């Protein structure tokens, strides 16, 4: 093992990176761009839902209900139809996404302390908005019912759910859960992508073969090749973390040690996967296709964008095979709740196993690869 040769490889790698005009912007702009996209666009926050209000009661109490919805910030009153047909038309024409129907005699029921109902019609064609809207509506109604019925008739079922979310994410800002997960996602993208491209490029161009006529050892080559990308990934993570906490004001309640070691372990897995892909691919195009192929299940089955709980039971076991699944849990719980090793050890163990298997396989392939 000669550090002179390792340093030489690192120097070469950075020199090439510096000259590669397409690579540099990707490395530094991509993470921030993703942060903005995931933070703002994919964010599950749905605000100003277009709402039609059918107030058949017209009482101070019914106004209180309407104000409750509007003041929550999630609903925006856009129309006040008087008939069901009119309301239907608004929904069909996508003028309104939600309709609130306050039945006649609503105030009488409230005064008589009788149970009553508020009808909420949700346009289900955009399932995301629909589920979010009905969730918010449930919360608004729950809080209104506490207001309207100061002495509860029974223990309000809706309140329990709302209270759980309020604990860790009081404003229900999805960016708070997105930024931590993004740290992991970007780390995965950059380690897998750059690593798979970097080795396959040397292979495609014949430089790898040229290197093997020199005294360089496999370990030296691998370390020289891995280190620059580890460093880059570290810079990207820092960038996302900084932008996330300062610009998006995501509160950080965790420990850098727990999160750092989780991410480091995950980076090993990513680099290992990248290495594996590059050893199994003949060309950079193949490597790229393989990465894209792996990216979709990673995004879908890891709980990064869609909750694991909403996954069909058949697919659920597959999620255990996605390394991103574990790190997403680690960074989210650590970032938001400050969970430590004691709580997160199963995830750490799973990732250590992944890193060992993937890296071991990559190494054994690397040994054989020039033989065919």
């Amino acid at each position, binding site marked *: 093992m000669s550090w*002179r*040769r390792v340093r*030489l490889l690192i120097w*070469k790698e950075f*020199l*090439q990176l510096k*000259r*590669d005009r397409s690579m540099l912007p990707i490395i530094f702009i991509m993470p921030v761009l993703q942060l903005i996209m995931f933070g703002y666009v994919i964010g599950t926050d749905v605000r100003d839902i277009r709402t039609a209000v059918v107030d058949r009661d017209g009482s101070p109490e019914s106004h209180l209900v309407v104000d409750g919805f509007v003041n929550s910030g999630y609903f925006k009153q856009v129309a006040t139809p008087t008939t069901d047909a009119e309301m239907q038309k608004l929904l069909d024409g996508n003028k309104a996404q939600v309709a609130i129907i306050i039945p006649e005699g609503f105030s009488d029921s409230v005064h008589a302390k009788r149970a009553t109902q508020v009808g909420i019609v949700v346009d289900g064609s955009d399932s995301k908005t629909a589920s979010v809207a009905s969730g918010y509506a449930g919360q608004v109604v729950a809080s209104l019912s506490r207001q309207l019925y100061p002495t509860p008739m029974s223990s309000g079922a809706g309140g329990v759910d709302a209270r759980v979310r309020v604990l860790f994410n009081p404003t229900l800002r999805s960016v708070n859960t997105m930024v931590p997960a993004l740290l992991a996602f970007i780390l995965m993208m950059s380690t897998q992508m750059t690593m798979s491209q970097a080795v396959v490029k040397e292979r495609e*161009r*014949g*430089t790898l*073969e*040229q*290197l*093997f*006529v*020199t*005294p*360089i050892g496999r370990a030296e080559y691998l370390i020289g090749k891995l280190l620059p990308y580890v460093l880059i990934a570290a810079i990207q993570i820092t960038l996302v973390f900084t932008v996330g906490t300062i610009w998006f004001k995501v509160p950080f309640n965790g420990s850098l040690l727990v999160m750092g070691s989780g991410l480091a372990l995950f980076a090993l897995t990513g680099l290992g996967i990248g290495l594996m892909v590059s050893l199994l691919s003949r060309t950079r195009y193949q490597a790229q296709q393989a990465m894209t192929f792996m990216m979709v299940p990673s995004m879908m089955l890891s709980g990064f964008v869609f909750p694991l709980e909403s996954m069909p039971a058949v697919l659920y076991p597959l999620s255990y095979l996605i390394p991103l699944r574990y790190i997403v849990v680690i960074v989210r719980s650590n970032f938001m709740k400050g969970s430590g090793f004691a709580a997160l050890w199963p995830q750490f163990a799973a990732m250590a196993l992944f890193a060992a298997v993937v890296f071991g396989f990559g190494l054994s392939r690397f040994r054989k690869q*020039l*033989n*065919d």
Partner: protein
Amino acid sequence: MITPAPIDEFALDVRDLRKEFKGTVAVDGVTMTVPRGEVFGLVGPDGAGKSTLIRMMATVLAPTSGDALVFGRSVRTEAAKVKPRIGYMSQAFSLYRDLTVKENLEFFAELRGVPRKEMASRSAKLLEFSGLTEFAKRQAQFLSGGMKQKLALAATLISEPDLLFLDEPTTGVDPVSRREFWRIISGLHRQGITVFVATPYMDEAERCDEIAFMTQGRIILRDTPAGMKRRVPGRVIEVDVSDYRAAMPIVRALPFSTSVEVSGEHLRVLVSGECENCEAEIRSALEGAGLAVSRIRPAATDLEMAFAALIPTATLPGRDDAEVLAVAE
């Protein structure tokens, strides 16, 4: 257990070397020796196994069986001792395109452990030698084909190897650069460096001390260029005729002609030895078919002719001799 040859005798001692790729035999038991200090040429059609053979001898590809000793060291078990003594230039340009000429040289020098204090003088010498001094700061990808090959050669020479493996080093290089490249090889030869070169060009094979002809994974002929030509029975007659295409089948049909080729402006006919009057017979056959013969004269055998005559067509995979020569040219 293979016993090593006396270290000084051969640069290369190849013993029944074989390579199979998933059922296809690329190199089918090659045995040969190359004396120190020789320029040794390897010729043969595409797919003959030349590159595979070289890659095994250069330690970048593990043999399926057999062994090659480089200065007495096995490529299988002592690759680490072989590497410092050899240089390998693969068929495709295989240096870093996005590094400059100088950076490439320094990278490979450092990697091969060239002492730092010698680095500057060696790289200056090689840049001078290869005429790349003024392009030292240019990225390799912006060099011409000929310059790229000279840079690749310089990079393999920077560690001062004793044996150079060159796999078709001048393929796709312009004629002027090719000549210059061979001038450099002659210089290396004078310094006592052994050069093992695969080439598709017969004029390059002509410059080697010895040549081996490889086809279907085997070496089927080996001799000096002059020896190859001497082996050819008969003599060559050069004919200038108005229509080569029409003339070829006519000449080929003559009983004494063993091989007919178009070479540049001439039709070259190999005739068997006992034919005394064949110039006249060729002329009358061609003129009888209404073709104008402007000149007809005896000529020297060249390597193309020699291979066409010496290599049994049956050994070539689905080719006739004309195609071999097309490959060779």
